[in-house]
Every structure is written in C-alpha cells, then in structure tokens.
C-alpha cells in the first residue's frame, strides 16, 4: 500500500487538498482559533506521512505542483492592491513608515533574542529573513551564509502564526485601522499572513500584499547592516 502511494503522482496533491477541505469543514463546525484550516491540513498531512512512512520527497513528487502555483498567485496579489490604489496613494507616507518600522524592529528583536539565547553568527543570520516571503528569504539566507533549510522553517512558523493569530493579535494590541491591520499582518507574517488578511477585508488584504513586497525588499537592505551585529 505504502509503495503504491509513494509512487503516485496524485497522492501529494490529493492529500494536501483533501486535508485542507477537511480543515475548512472542521473550522466551520467548531469555531476555535487553533482550528485554522491551514494548520489542520498541515497537521493531518504530516500525521499521514508519519503513519504510512511515506517520505517527504515522495509526497512532494505530486505536492510540488501546488507550490508551483504560488508564483502566479503572488503576482495576482497586484489585483487587490490595484483595486485599493486610491487608499495607497492617500496614505503612502504612513504605509512606508509603518513597513520600515516593522523591518527595523524585526532586525532588532531578532538581534536581542539571539544574544539572549547565545546564538552564533550563522544561527543569527539564519533567522534574520524570518518575517519575509520564502522566495526572498531563501535568497537572502544564501547571501548571508545562513542555514537555508532552517530559514525556510522559521519563515513557515512565522507565516503560520500570522495566519492563525494575525486578526486576534491586531485586536489584542489595539490596531484598529484597516490599513494599519493589513500593514501589520503583511510586514510581520508575509504571504501566509496576507491570505488571512484577505479574509479580514479588501483594504486589509491589499495593504498586506503591498507590505509583503516592500518589507521583503527593505529587509534585504537592512539585513546587510544587521548581519554585522553578531
């Protein structure tokens, strides 16, 4: 059975989409914040792989076609952004300063906690790209000579956290303005947070998309300076 499944091209996609659908059903039935469709799908997929003993690489044989759609989907984020272009123009300075504040505090907080945990240079630079989108994060981690696989993991944890708790955190921390919410979620938790921001509202989604691109590029510049600290 395991052998048949691991050679299958549609197993990876099937299990990912299937668990995601199951996740949305569970979320609808039980409204508990940890019951996030993405988190549920990931947990169920990992559990399935562990139980059946199917290797990640075999799973990814089929699942990679889902990842393949990520580039066109990110390109498409320009559409909601364009639909909100008047808001963007009107609040340009607030938006840029907001994103820049996020990028700087990201570097500073990672630096402070790296000191606290006694991390070395390589571990420290590995975590610097954690708030930005994976594709930029991978490139940056390579550039800084970090552990790329760990950078990807930290990016995923950050994104998943933003996807689960982004809305809740904004409420708890007193971020009420929809533009500010979008900027906060996008700057802190990149595209994964953005897909959550899209659910909060059109303005939130558009501003979050913008933050992914701008924060990603700003982080590349900031990381060059931050890497010298440890």
């Amino acid at each position, binding site marked *: 059975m395991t052998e048949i499944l691991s050679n299958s091209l549609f197993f990876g996609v099937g299990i990912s989409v299937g668990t995601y659908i199951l996740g949305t059903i569970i979320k609808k039935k039980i409204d508990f914040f940890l019951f996030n469709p993405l988190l549920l799908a990931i947990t169920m997929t990992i559990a399935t792989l562990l139980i059946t003993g199917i290797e990640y690489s075999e799973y990814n044989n089929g699942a990679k076609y889902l990842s393949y759609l990520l580039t066109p989907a990110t390109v498409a984020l320009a559409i909601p952004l364009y639909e909100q*272009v008047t808001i963007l123009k009107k609040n340009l300075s607030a938006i840029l300063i907001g994103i820049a504040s996020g990028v700087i505090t990201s570097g500073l907080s990672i630096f402070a906690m790296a000191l606290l945990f006694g991390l070395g240079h390589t571990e420290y630079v590995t975590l610097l790209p954690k708030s930005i989108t994976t594709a*930029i994060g991978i490139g940056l981690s390579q550039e800084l000579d970090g552990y790329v696989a760990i950078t990807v993991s*930290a990016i995923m944890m950050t994104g998943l956290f933003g996807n689960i708790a982004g809305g809740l955190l904004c409420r708890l921390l007193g971020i009420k303005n929809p533009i500010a919410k979008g900027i906060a979620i996008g700057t802190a938790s990149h595209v994964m947070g953005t897909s959550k921001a899209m659910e909060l509202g059109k303005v939130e989604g558009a501003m979050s998309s913008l933050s992914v691109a701008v924060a990603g590029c700003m982080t590349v510049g900031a990381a060059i300076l931050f890497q010298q600290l440890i």
Partner: protein
Amino acid sequence: MKYIKQFEIILAISLIGELLNRLIPLPIPASIYGMTILFTALCTGIVKLSAVKETGHFLIQIMPMMFIPATVSLLESWSIMQNFLIAIIVISLVSTIIVLFASGHATQIIINLKKKEKKQ
C-alpha cells in the same frame, strides 16, 4: 475561454518575473517582480482589470493551500533544527508579535496625525 486568457496573462507576467530574477543578481524572487509588473501594467492601463480579475481572485482564494507542501517540509528539517529548536520557535513567535505591533501602530499613529492636521 475568458479564464484561460486571464490565466495566460498572469503566467506570462510570472515568466517575465522569472527572467528578471535570472538576469538581475539580487535575491528578489520572480513573484515580486511579477507583482510589481502587473501592478504597474494595471495602473498604466496596459493590462485592463477585467483581463485578469476573476482568475486572479480565484488564485488568491486558494492560496493558503499552496503553503501546505513547503510547511510539511518542517518534518524534514526537524532533525537539523534540534540544537536550537526552542530558540527558533521563541524568536519566530515573539518577534512576529513585536513586528506586528510596531508596524501596525506606526501606520496607525501617522494616519491619525494626518487626520488631525486636516481638521485644523
């Protein structure tokens, strides 16, 4: 047919993004070049909103699913992370909260300041 045309436009822009990523020696991915190109094209009217809208929104709607394979790869990197797993988890979560707070409030403060300025 309409949706296929829309998808093709988005794919073509992704392709241009990919080419730029290979030509320009910066760690900026194809998707960010593509997003910038599509945004510029929409603003200048080179691409009409109606030429990409439905397929674009569909792709965005199903986007969360696309993160599943990459996140499941945590399973593989678990063993190399063991030495500083707690540090990674704590730093990831705490700094996300700090960044969210800082960027959100900075934006909010400036928007409110501008509103006040206009009133005066």
